[in-house]
């Protein structure tokens, strides 16, 4: 039986805690870690010789006095762990040692057992700072160790050090001075120590200066940001088209193979029409999700997002938000759930609430499957201007519709929510860094896993229920249909579609039809609207299941089935008007239970998720109605 030791990682924001956490634990992290800025504690494990370590990564802090919700999480956890005498691994930014050590000394005086890891040594070296860690160890009375979490150098040494016992050591000791004067006293003492243990030779690197000239240029700055967004949306669409095709044909072949070798039995139907159809609908979108997170992770990891926050702060304030809101909003392009959590870094309550309320209007990755399916049905795949794909442009347009409505909604809510609290934007501007590819790889892997496992679970469950609901119906009606089929009154395909129409799912869609008919939706789409309330991407799986229950042969893709579908008078069901109306509905409607749950958790009240559900679905209904009535 190995010993178990708990290690708590703490330090300033941007000090490289999370990448150290990744180096220590690798893939051995608990599920549910949301990548990006750390706003909640995460845990992971590693083993060194005969000790098992459990490591906790916490949100970054500047001082022991929390200013925002994410910092409260860190301080609270730190207090609990000092009570249990866990080891605190303090991650110090070597390029900004004086500020880093302020929090370190505050924690020393909280009676914690501390080990200090010196991180960002490469940046420090570029700035001409040379650090003697032995002198620091001697003068602070706690162990200092050099780290370089970008390489594995130092990690082994760190693990050895963590295996040893550590003791608490006071820095200032008991003091009855007030908070601000105690900060000054700490800095004074830190300065004295640093004077003997570090030397500074040259001036700060110039690469950041040059890059900032462009990133924060009065005109170019905004142009660059916009170009990055457009490039991102375009490439998500075009780069992923090949892997998407491979996955599609792979599933097609598998379905074909299984239906040939398996006996004609209801379990076979359940597997093929229910589970497999639903799964295929979701796996197809893994390439898009992966590319999306790849881009977002690069933007965050390189330090570019703080620049965007800076150039947009004034505009954001005009609509009631904060420059910091940019990070949740851009994060919302990936997924609203971690994005809403990352709004914790906004200390002003009103700005945080507004950010939470409007973030789900940003086009999240769950909308991509719905958008791509419908765009590929109603928009021809043509290239204009030699570069822009028409379908890609349509997708980009939808992203911008999302951004515009986000801004408008915030502008309106800003008028109704009042606050006395003052708003702050004192923020560190870190130097640009090469994205840490290992971190980005882990992020993508983690996100795809969460997407497949979490969304997959819901989708498989819903697919099975839906398969049941759409294969069975009131026996009276079903017997009657069977008789008509046997007497040759209706042919086989008519029989299957009548069966679907009279099934339980069909009845559900039919009940909804009067409400959604003005939007151009039929009862089949009605079924999908209900099921995709769980999560937007379920729409695709539902369509796949409905159409494969109806189609006995099962040879064509869901896209072709939907394109070919006609109504009673021989007209195409998925006209431009219907498709456009559906796109707008999914752009605005609050079709995501997990988002509602996370908003409840973050605001601690049902008031706001209810409000979101009502206002978003209201906007969706209104816009779809107007669009369909004009275009029909």
């Amino acid at each position, binding site marked *: 039986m190995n010993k178990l030791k708990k290690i708590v990682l703490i330090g300033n924001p941007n000090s490289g805690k999370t990448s150290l956490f990744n180096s220590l634990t690798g893939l051995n992290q608990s599920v549910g870690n949301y990548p990006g800025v750390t706003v909640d504690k995460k845990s992971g494990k590693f083993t060194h010789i005969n000790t098992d370590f459990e490591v906790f990564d916490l949100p970054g802090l500047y001082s022991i006095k929390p200013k925002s919700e994410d910092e409260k999480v860190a301080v609270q956890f730190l207090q609990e762990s000092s009570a249990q005498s866990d080891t605190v691994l303090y991650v110090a930014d070597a390029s900004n040692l004086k500020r880093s050590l302020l929090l370190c000394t505050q924690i020393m005086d909280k009676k914690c057992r501390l080990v200090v890891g010196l991180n960002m040594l490469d940046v420090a070296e570029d700035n001409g700072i040379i650090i003697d860690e032995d002198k620091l160890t001697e003068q602070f009375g706690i162990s200092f160790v050099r780290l370089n979490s970008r390489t594995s150098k130092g990690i082994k040494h760190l693990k050895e050090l963590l295996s040893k016992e550590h003791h608490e050591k006071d820095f200032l000791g008991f003091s009855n001075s007030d908070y601000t004067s105690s900060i000054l006293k700490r800095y004074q003492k830190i300065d004295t120590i640093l004077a003997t243990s570090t030397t500074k030779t040259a001036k700060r690197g110039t690469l950041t200066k040059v890059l900032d000239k462009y990133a924060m240029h009065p005109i170019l700055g905004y142009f660059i940001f916009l170009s990055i967004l457009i490039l991102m949306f375009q490439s998500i669409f075009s780069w992923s088209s090949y892997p998407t095709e491979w996955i599609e044909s792979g599933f097609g072949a598998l379905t074909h193979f299984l239906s040939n070798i398996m006996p004609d039995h209801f379990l076979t139907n359940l597997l093929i029409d229910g589970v497999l159809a639903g799964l295929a609908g979701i796996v197809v979108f893994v390439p898009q999700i992966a590319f999306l997170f790849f881009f977002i992770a690069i933007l965050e990891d390189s330090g570019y997002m703080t620049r965007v926050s*800076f150039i947009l702060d004034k505009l954001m304030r005009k609509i009631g938000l904060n420059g910091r809101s940019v990070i949740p909003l851009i994060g919302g392009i990936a997924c609203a759930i971690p994005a809403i959590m990352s709004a914790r870094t906004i200390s002003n309550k009103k700005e945080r609430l507004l950010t939470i309320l409007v973030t789900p209007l940003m086009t999240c990755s769950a909308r991509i499957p719905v958008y791509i399916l419908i765009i590929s049905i109603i928009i021809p795949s043509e290239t204009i201007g030699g570069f822009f794909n028409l379908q890609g442009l349509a997708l980009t347009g939808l992203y911008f519709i999302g951004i515009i409505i986000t801004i408008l909604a915030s502008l309106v809510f800003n008028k109704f929510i009042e606050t006395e609290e003052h708003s702050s934007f004192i923020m560190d501007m870190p130097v640009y860094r090469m994205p840490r590819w290992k971190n980005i790889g882990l992020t993508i892997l983690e996100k795809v896993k969460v997407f497949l496992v979490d969304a997959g679970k819901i989708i498989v469950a819903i697919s099975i229920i839906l398969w049941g609901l759409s294969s069975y119906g009131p026996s009276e009606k079903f017997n009657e249909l069977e008789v008509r089929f046997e007497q040759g009154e209706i042919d086989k395909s008519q029989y299957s579609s009548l069966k679907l129409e009279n099934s339980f799912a069909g009845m559900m869609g039919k009940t909804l039809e009067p409400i959604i008919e003005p939007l151009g939706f039929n009862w089949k789409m009605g079924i999908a609207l209900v099921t995709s309330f769980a999560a937007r991407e379920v729409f695709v799986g539902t369509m796949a299941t409905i159409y494969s229950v109806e189609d006995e042969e099962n040879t064509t893709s869901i896209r072709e089935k939907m394109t070919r579908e006609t109504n009673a008078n021989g007209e195409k069901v998925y006209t431009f008007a219907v498709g456009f109306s559906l796109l707008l509905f999914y752009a605005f409607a609050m079709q995501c239970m997990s988002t509602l749950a996370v908003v409840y958790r973050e605001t601690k009240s049902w008031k706001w998720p209810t409000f979101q559900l009502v206002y978003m679905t209201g906007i969706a209904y209104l816009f779809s109605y107007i669009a369909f009535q004009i275009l029909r």
Partner: protein
Amino acid sequence: MKFPPLTLDLLQKGTKASVQGFEDDVVEEKMLEMGCLPGSIVELEKIAPLGDPIIISMSEGNLALRKDEARHIRVILIN
């Protein structure tokens, strides 16, 4: 002869100043935590395209803050 006190928000781009003190407790606490103390030498590095916020550089690195916040920081010019 008495001059009106100079505050950080009034600095021209590229000028250097020495921090003298703070007029607002919230700003003071936050600035101290970020490593900006009385006596720190700061340079106005950048003004956002829309005139606000600003970036100051110190020996510890760069900080962004709003003019509203900079207004509470007393400075004197240095050459």
